[in-house]
């Protein structure tokens, strides 16, 4: 390619996303900077620090939190959430409905993208009392917009429900063929495969597999899409911190990222939807996706009933997604709805429900749940490539870095 590096332009929305992303990443980096992480991750004390148990509790004890005051009468609450938690939350809502508290509290799950959830709240969607996106990526933008409209803080209480890093997920047959050719899975080798005009014929002498099909979500609409671009940039530069403008404006890097992204497909706004599509439509739709670890693990068994085994590989470096639960101080939320939202939060953080989060591939927010137990999927799914310990965790890049990465990506889209 002959394109010259230029200072790309970013839209207003792009800047908003970038600002939020940086804030969220900075929060994450505060915990992981320079540390080879162990499980469970240890969070420090800080303003934006995700907490793993109800305030004032021993984080290593089973939560059994102090019960919130219950609503006086039957009440209905709405939770806007990211579809990466769909299966776990739907199960939890059904379980909750069987409890004495749950018989008085009806929980409506409202699936929507992280940015969409924030926008709906600011627009005054009265069906939403709680917001639970994939990460804190969009929190600050939401807070700013809310303050402009209502002149007060929007979040009454926030907790981390569960954590999940990013992974590559492949069909096993294609993973084996990919490894045979490229030896390892990384954004560099993915980009190499996407560049092959003859696709699988050139990669593995399998013309019947067509072109190599790699997908991720939309970076302007989905948390995992933006994660893809940032982690790809780190991996290309072989860094996990200190990404510079010089790195990003390097014409070789720009050409590499644009070429990779022109070959990528999908770009849904929902990670869960993309993963489900991969399992429903098989390798004809995607050979590989870049998704949350929990989403990949949650579909491992279903995939076997359809097309065969999946394989998981971890990028280096990686990043965490903390699935926050925000109880919103909305003017339309009644006192009973706020109490009910807290009751349901405590239910979600309780040991049985957190254990079920583990079954769905999350690393529980409640640190008393051991993920190294013999029956933990993080142990039993080892054959699929699942690992407990991760390599380096990347720091948040600076704002101008992210803005340039997004702008380069925008150019790759317009060039298609």
């Amino acid at each position, binding site marked *: 390619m002959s394109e010259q590096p230029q200072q790309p332009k970013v839209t207003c929305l792009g800047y908003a996303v970038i600002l939020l992303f940086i804030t969220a990443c900075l929060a994450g980096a505060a915990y992981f900077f320079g540390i080879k992480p162990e499980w469970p991750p240890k969070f420090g004390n800080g303003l934006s620090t995700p907490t793993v148990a109800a305030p004032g509790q021993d984080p290593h004890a089973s939560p059994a939190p102090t019960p919130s005051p219950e609503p006086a009468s039957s009440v209905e609450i709405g939770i806007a959430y990211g579809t990466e938690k769909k299966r776990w939350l739907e199960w939890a809502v059904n379980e909750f409905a069987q409890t004495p508290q749950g018989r008085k509290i009806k929980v409506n799950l409202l699936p929507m993208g992280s940015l969409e959830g924030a926008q709906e709240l600011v627009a005054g969607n009265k069906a939403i009392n709680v917001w639970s996106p994939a990460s804190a990526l969009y929190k600050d933008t939401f807070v700013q917009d809310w303050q402009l409209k209502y002149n007060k803080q929007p979040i009454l209480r926030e907790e981390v429900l569960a954590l999940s890093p990013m992974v590559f997920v492949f069909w096993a047959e294609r993973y084996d063929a990919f490894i045979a050719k490229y030896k390892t899975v990384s954004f560099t080798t993915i980009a190499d495969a996407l560049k092959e005009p003859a696709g699988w014929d050139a990669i593995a002498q399998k013309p*019947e597999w*067509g072109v190599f*099909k790699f997908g991720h979500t939309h970076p302007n609409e989905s948390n995992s899409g933006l994660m893809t671009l940032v982690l790809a940039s780190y991996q290309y530069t072989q860094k996990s911190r200190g990404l510079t403008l010089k790195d990003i404006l390097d014409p070789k890097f720009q050409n590499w990222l644009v070429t990779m992204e022109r070959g990528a497909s999908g770009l849904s706004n929902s990670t869960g939807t993309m993963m*489900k599509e991969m399992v*429903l439509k098989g390798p004809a739709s995607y050979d590989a996706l870049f998704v949350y670890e929990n989403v990949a693990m949650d579909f491992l068994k279903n995939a076997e009933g*359809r097309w065969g085994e999946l394989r998981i590989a971890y990028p280096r470096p990686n990043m965490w997604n903390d699935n926050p639960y925000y109880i919103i101080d909305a003017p339309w939320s009644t006192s009973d709805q706020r109490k009910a939202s807290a009751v349901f939060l405590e239910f979600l953080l309780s040991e049985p429900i957190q254990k079920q989060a583990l079954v769905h591939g999350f690393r529980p927010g409640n640190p008393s749940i051991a993920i190294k137990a013999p029956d933990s999927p993080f142990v039993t799914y080892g054959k699929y490539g699942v690992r407990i310990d991760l390599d380096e965790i990347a720091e948040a890049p600076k704002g101008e870095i992210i803005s340039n990465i997004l702008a380069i990506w925008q150019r790759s889209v317009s060039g298609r």
Partner: protein
Amino acid sequence: MLVWKVLAVALVISGCSPSSAPDASAPEKPAGQAQAPAGAVQLVFTYGSEKEEWIKDVTTSFNASGARTASGKPIFVTAIPMGSGECVDEILNETRKPHLVSPASGVFIKLGNAQSRQKTGKDLVVGEAENLVLSPVVIAMWKPMAEALGWGKKPVGWEDILAVAKSPNGWAAFGQPQWGDFRFGHTHPQFSNSGIISVLAEVYAASGKVKNLTLDDVQSAKVADALQGIEQSVVHYGSSTGFFGKKMFTNGPKYLSAAVLYESSVIESYSSQFTPAFPVVAIYPKEGTFWSDHPVGIVARDWVSEEQRAAARIYISYLLAKPQQEKAITYGFRPSMVEIPIASPIDTAHGVDPKEPRTTLEIPSTDVMDSILTLWGKAKKHSSITLVLDTSGSMEKDGRMANAREGALTMLSALSDDDVFGLLPFSTKPIWVSEGAPLKQSREKMKTAISGLMESGTTVLYDAIGIAYDKLLQQRKTNPGRIDALVVLTDGADNKSDISLEQLLEKVRYDNEGKTIRIFIIGYGDEAEKDKLKKIADATQGKYYDGTPQNIRQVFRDISTFF
């Protein structure tokens, strides 16, 4: 970006098909025939007819299940099958006001949302549409014929279809001279999803590419030659994928060697309603194919109340629940509930392979798609059509004649300049207006003639059909390689012909050799002798339609999709 490319293609399709043509012969058959209970929240659900049998089954059980809204009102669903494009058009044009919609492919939802935003500033459906069931697009072929192409031993695809289609000796080049010519069927690319997919796949195969198709590729002599080679083996086009399937399974390999269908149609061929001479198998083209994924959405219009939206969500949840999803497998669909493993009848015993397809094709950009459709217009098999039109005195009633003229003009406008068109009005006797001439020269004259047709006299239907048939048979000797057909419209019983129905049937019966002219016949109004007319259409492997002054334009439009 794939999403935008898909949308672009959808817009191309839409541009070519401003109002898609449903199977106008099929009366609306709402599923769940029971009456709605008093005080029920009633929902109208329009959906792609490919999944009609499953929807009828599960909607009937839903209506009988006692499902109620949160306030305790019973819910009653009326499900109406139609073409996928029509599902979208009806909402955009507000010709019907459904509460839920489910076309065959997500492309139609994207198209509908884009068109709806342009028109009203809001989407067609609320939020994300979930897939109800899935089925890949396949080439359905009789097993012995597929084996002759190497199926079962090696990957088979469009390249192999091209080879047999271009073979001057047909199946003889594959050691099977007794099978005659290769006869192929796919729907009209300007009216049907599987039609555009067929043409796109043919171009990909001819270019040797699987992605990044360019204008240069499409405009190359190699691609034009290959496309023409396949298209000349097409017996006729049409608007309904299911119609090809049913015709193929009923009429056997002499009618069609292969057709582009959905995987679920291949499985349907194994049901007890068909007794084909050979099994049918699905070829998943080695070059790649596409999925039909049946998304369902709640219509985003003011006529859908909050109560109906809540009721619609309950109905959708019912369709997506395990028992209904398991039932979908028995109808040959792959369930959208990933927890349900793929099982029989989605297996090799029913001609399909649950581990296919292995790859899909990329949908090209709008300009490339446009170029492909233009190329197809040149490469397609052209037609020789004679319109045999009843102008007897009874056509005066209820504006029949005026509407029939409008309908005939609609069909005329859908035919290309390279098509040959003849016109034989009849009443007391048939009188030729034109025995047939290329529309390049005769279009204006034919328009004037149709517009000036007047009603009077009696009905010599059988004589008129016989005369038109003989003339077309004679003409094809000097002008072979076309889709030859009579389009007949009549509003009453034959009361003056010299030949009997039996004699006419003997004359026109399809024999796969000399007598391959198809008759598409419209019984117009209540006095038409439907059973007799249907016998004539069936004898020629054509199609019978119920026509009324209200639907006649749509009927003619649907007939024009065959050519």
